[in-house]
């Protein structure tokens, strides 16, 4: 197992699932197993984003005035939505849809929280269903 030093963090490759230990200061890294580049930063959507995929080992945050219309949002550490999202959302962490958040699209995540006032419309696969 990883001997995590205090100034290290562990990220999971969003291509192959390999766990990688790296320095806290690292902004990007290449997965030693699949040799593909990984984004480590949190991605914050403050206004309109469309077309692109949003993928990171960190978190994706869609702020109140943010609007993300993309094919896929994949954030290993979690997704925070206070704005509007039209995308397939997946995360190894919590997908939190705030009271003003709106998600139209399918969600796959370890857990899901939707506050009163939030809007979600999509197929959900939450947890680690074996079936």
């Amino acid at each position, binding site marked *: 197992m990883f001997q995590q030093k205090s100034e290290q963090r562990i990220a999971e490759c969003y291509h192959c699932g390999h766990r990688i230990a790296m320095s806290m200061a690292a902004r990007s890294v290449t997965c030693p197993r699949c040799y593909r580049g990984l984004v480590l930063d949190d991605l914050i959507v403050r206004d309109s984003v469309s077309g692109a995929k949003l993928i990171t080992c960190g978190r994706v945050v869609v702020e109140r005035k943010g609007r993300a219309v993309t094919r896929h949002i994949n954030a290993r550490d979690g997704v925070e939505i206070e704005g509007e999202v039209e995308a397939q959302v997946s995360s190894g962490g*919590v997908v939190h*849809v705030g009271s003003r958040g*709106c998600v139209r699209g399918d*969600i796959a995540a*370890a*857990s*899901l*929280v*939707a*506050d*009163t*006032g*939030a*809007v*979600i*419309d*999509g*197929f*959900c*696969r*939450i*947890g*680690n*269903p074996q*079936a």
Partner: protein
Amino acid sequence: MPERETTATIIGPGTKIKGELAFEGSARILGGVDGQINGTGELTIGSGAVCQAAIEADTVVIDGTVEGDVVARQRLTLSSKATLKGDITAAAVAVAEGATFIGHCRVGPEALANPPARTTTTIEPKAKSRAQAPEWAGEKKTTDWTPTPTTAIPENAKPTWMAGLTGSA
């Protein structure tokens, strides 16, 4: 404020209900319900409980296993041991880490304003009870259907039982 009488409906472990369960106030299912659960107030599906039911209540807390659609007018909570397979419609949702949920999710005031058409969970009838018409029904049984012969029945083709009635030679 008048003190509200809190009477809880409790379906104990080992008890299984088939059909519709309606409650007011609060209900706690520790056994099982196959069919429908409707209520105003809080419904808790306890850990170890297994329900194959369409559920509708103000607040729904699931610790056990549910197969069926859930409508929570206020809040739906799935704890870490919960398993839910079915569609949900709710004002607010919390699915804890460790819980399993597979299904369509409609959350928000709009979703509640247009709830999905009531889906009924069909309980497979036991082979024994299937299509066994009661005896009294058999007596009154009438058949509208009359066969239309393709060819004219010859005069001498009277059935034998008619011979006695008409007394013909």
